[in-house]
């Protein structure tokens, strides 16, 4: 049972191979299909292209991102990082954070439908969405940076804290890198639902629509509201860009990739 087969009535509006865009009843669905869907320049560029198409579609009322197979996203492409310079890794982090911010402030409600593992950068990517759904029976959601000498950029902390909340779920997830199955993520408030895989997409669409209601969100209003609610994230993000935070993160990523 694959995500794509549950989209069998629909042809992709745009197919970029590793990434494809579908429209299902006024909801955009971006499907990643590239093994571990590790984050590199190619994925980021393609993602932006599809997000542009989604934004230009005035009848679209929401965005779901998902993937086919065992992984939603297993984080940064560390093999790539190993083979490239610190400056290039820094550029990757800058672009990744830009994509995350775009998702965070997207003028439509967003939902990450986790078909499988979401580790490290993949977990962060999922957290940048408004809603999360994790399949019930397989796959983990895990911010395992602490276990692999990984690093967050400063703006990630207010982001994770706002989404997860203060309390032991936040500290368990981030300080101790706890690994969550669907049901565990649901009871800890990290995801909004944990259906079986065959219902992942249907329940995601249903959940998204339950928030949108009949008329959906006025786009500008939603974007402004997100900018207000995530004010501290945005402010810290600006600081991170202006300072050498990205450079430091790149250096750490490089040394991490060698392990």
């Amino acid at each position: 049972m694959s995500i794509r087969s549950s989209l069998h009535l629909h042809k992709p509006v745009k197919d970029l191979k590793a990434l494809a865009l579908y429209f299902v009843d006024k909801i955009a669905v971006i499907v990643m299909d590239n093994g571990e869907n590790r984050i590199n320049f190619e994925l980021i560029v393609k993602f932006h292209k599809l997000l542009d198409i989604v934004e230009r579609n005035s009848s679209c009322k929401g965005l779901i991102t998902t993937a086919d197979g065992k992984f939603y996203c297993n984080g940064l492409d560390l093999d790539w990082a190993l083979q490239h310079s610190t400056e290039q890794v820094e550029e990757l982090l800058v672009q990744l954070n830009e994509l995350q911010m775009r998702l965070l402030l997207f003028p439509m409600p967003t939902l990450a439908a986790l078909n499988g593992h979401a580790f490290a950068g993949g977990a962060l990517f999922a957290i940048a969405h408004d809603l999360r759904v994790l399949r019930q029976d397989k796959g983990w959601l895990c911010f395992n940076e602490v276990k692999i000498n990984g690093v967050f950029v400063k703006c990630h902390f207010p982001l994770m804290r706002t989404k997860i909340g203060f309390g032991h779920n936040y500290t368990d997830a981030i300080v101790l890198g706890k690994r969550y199955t669907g049901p565990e993520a649901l009871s800890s408030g990290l995801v909004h639902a944990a259906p079986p895989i065959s219902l992942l997409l249907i329940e995601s669409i249903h959940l998204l629509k339950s928030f949108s209601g009949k008329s959906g969100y006025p786009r500008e209003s939603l974007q402004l509201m997100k900018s207000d609610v995530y004010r501290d994230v945005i402010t810290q993000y600006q600081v991170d860009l202006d300072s050498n935070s990205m450079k430091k993160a790149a250096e750490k990523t490089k040394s991490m990739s060698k392990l």
Partner: protein
Amino acid sequence: MNVSDHLHKPVKTLNGLELHYVGDFAVIVMDRGENRLNTDFLDCFNELMDDVERNSSCKGLITTGKGKFYGNGLDLKWIAGLKSPEMFHEFFVKISLWLKRILVFPLPTLAAINGHAYAGGALMAFAHDLRVQNKEKGWLCFNEVFISRQFQPFHYLYIRTKIGQNYTEAIVLGKRYTGSEALSNGLVHAAPSMSLLLSESVQLLKSFCGKSGYPRESLHLMKCDVYRDVLEQHQRDMSGIGREKKETKIVANDVKSRL
């Protein structure tokens, strides 16, 4: 039934503080009656923590008490006997540094709450990553509000990060929690029977560590990042304590007058 009934001979004993090992986990057992905080307690505790840090095969730290108390807060009688505001000030710096040390310790930490954890004892428990409280005896309680005491500014920040939603009830209203209540309010991670306190604590710590445990530096840095606001406030509080010498004299006299 004492927690330490399950432990073998301590590796080291310092004035009622015992250091044991259970597999790869260090267990500090406090056996000083109410386990109240004074300079001798802190000096001995710090020395045992030094030993734990120096043991490169150690993968985690559990702290617990013997008998009716985990910790009943500051040793107010002893404080009242301090001869000068300078000694008072020195003690408060020491206790603040000790709490910070536990907060960012380079190993996962767990407070196994065998009995009452009041005021400073609760502060100590919350400086740990994880908390397990027995469900049969004792309360966890920040009762400062009832005895006209305030927290240091940095305390508020780490308590808030650890507790989350029920923060105001716990701090403003000084609510007291049995093990079961603490569990359902997100203050502790488990509430086993007294006889299972140690073994469940060890199990819980193991479940976070996984096979390889945490790289020490990575864990320490992650804690510094997650608790960045706490550490920044802690710095300010430390220099503030210097400026407040006049006030500490007033507080010291105030404490004296209460006894």
